């Protein structure tokens, strides 16, 4: 039985399944599904604590967004623990985290975004030539379409018009924002 639980390929699959359910929001990945697909020879009674252990380890790593030094220290400690993991299992977990770290972090950050977010931007520059009130205008005008939406909901499209002055003002404000972010994120 222990032999089956040692299988690297199966563990890799298990971690993927756990990530899908915990981080990427896929429904329907049950305990039974994982067992039957990856560890068919293992009983549910034996599988359950094993699954809980792996789930716990993965959640700790993801929640702390561990870098590779922290990861190594953490996994080494787990191998030394009573009822912990084997070094082969540690290797599989380490490999999994290295390839999924960024994507999982992105997904976790999104879980705490509840307001509408900017999803996309399209733009066009037109040359205004005439209107009912003016025969010759010849000014460039920018039209921007902002796609805004909340997680899981349909987008709203905002269509806005800007003359050159307004585009300049917008760019200036965005530069102020950029400077603010850079200052904040500078290492202490």
């Amino acid at each position, binding site marked *: 039985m222990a032999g089956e639980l040692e299988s690297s390929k199966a563990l890799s699959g298990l971690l993927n399944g756990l990530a899908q359910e915990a981080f990427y929001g896929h429904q329907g990945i049950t305990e039974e599904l994982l067992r039957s697909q990856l560890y068919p020879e293992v009983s549910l009674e034996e599988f359950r604590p094993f699954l809980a252990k792996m789930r716990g380890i993965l959640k700790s790593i993801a929640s702390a967004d561990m870098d590779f030094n922290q990861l190594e220290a953490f996994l080494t400690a787990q191998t030394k623990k009573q009822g912990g993991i084997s070094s082969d299992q540690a290797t599989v977990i380490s490999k999994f985290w290295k390839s999924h770290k960024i994507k999982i972090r992105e997904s976790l950050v999104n879980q705490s975004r509840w307001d509408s977010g900017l999803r996309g931007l399209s733009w066009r520059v037109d040359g205004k030539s005439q209107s*009912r009130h003016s*025969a010759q205008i010849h000014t460039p005008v920018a039209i921007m379409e902002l796609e805004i939406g909340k997680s899981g909901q349909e987008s709203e499209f905002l269509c806005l018009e800007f003359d050159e002055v307004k585009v300049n003002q917008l760019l200036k404000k965005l530069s102020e924002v950029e400077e603010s972010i850079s200052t904040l994120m500078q290492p202490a």
Partner: protein
Amino acid sequence: MSAVGTAAPYLHYPADSHSGRVSFLGAQLPPEVAAMPRLLGDLDRGTFRKLLKLVVSSLQGEDCREAVQRLRAGADLSEERLGVLLAGTNTLLQQAIRLPPASLKPDAFQDQLQELCIPQDLVTDLASVVFGSQRPLLNSVARQQGAWLPHVSRLCWRVDVAISTSALARSLQPSVLMQLKLSDGSAHRFEIPTAKFQELRYSVALVLKEMADLEKRCELKLQA
């Protein structure tokens, strides 16, 4: 002005004018302008000047309803006659202001009004509005009245850094919150993730460059 009566202005085909060009009022004379000349002959000049002042205020975006009532009461004008004069004067001025000075010169303007049988002293008054000191203001009001998509009237921003969340013990993720107030009165608030923010900034810079290039190209075309 005599036997032909009100039909007279319609017989002035644009091509008949000695310059041979199309009138600033267009190929077909607007009916409200056509109806004016017969009402102007015996109109008190002071009344006309008041009326003109009223129309100019309206073109500058002011609410002139009360002023119209006062004018009607004070000048003893029938509602119908006042209506024709207001509409005609308004159209006449609007059409003239629509064209840049290079396209419609004072002489041409005055000639064309005379061809419509508008009395000379009133032509002078109208010309002083179109080519006088008020013109820049009338131009800027006309520009603002053009067809618009909503534009941004106010932009406020905030940078937040999420320290910790229920999903991430140590987040330290900056996020930009933006609030836009638009010219149509609506307000929109949304978050901009860091990657999208960079994309936005790049796009806006590119838009500005494209606008500057387009303006240069238009200038060159006008000069050519």
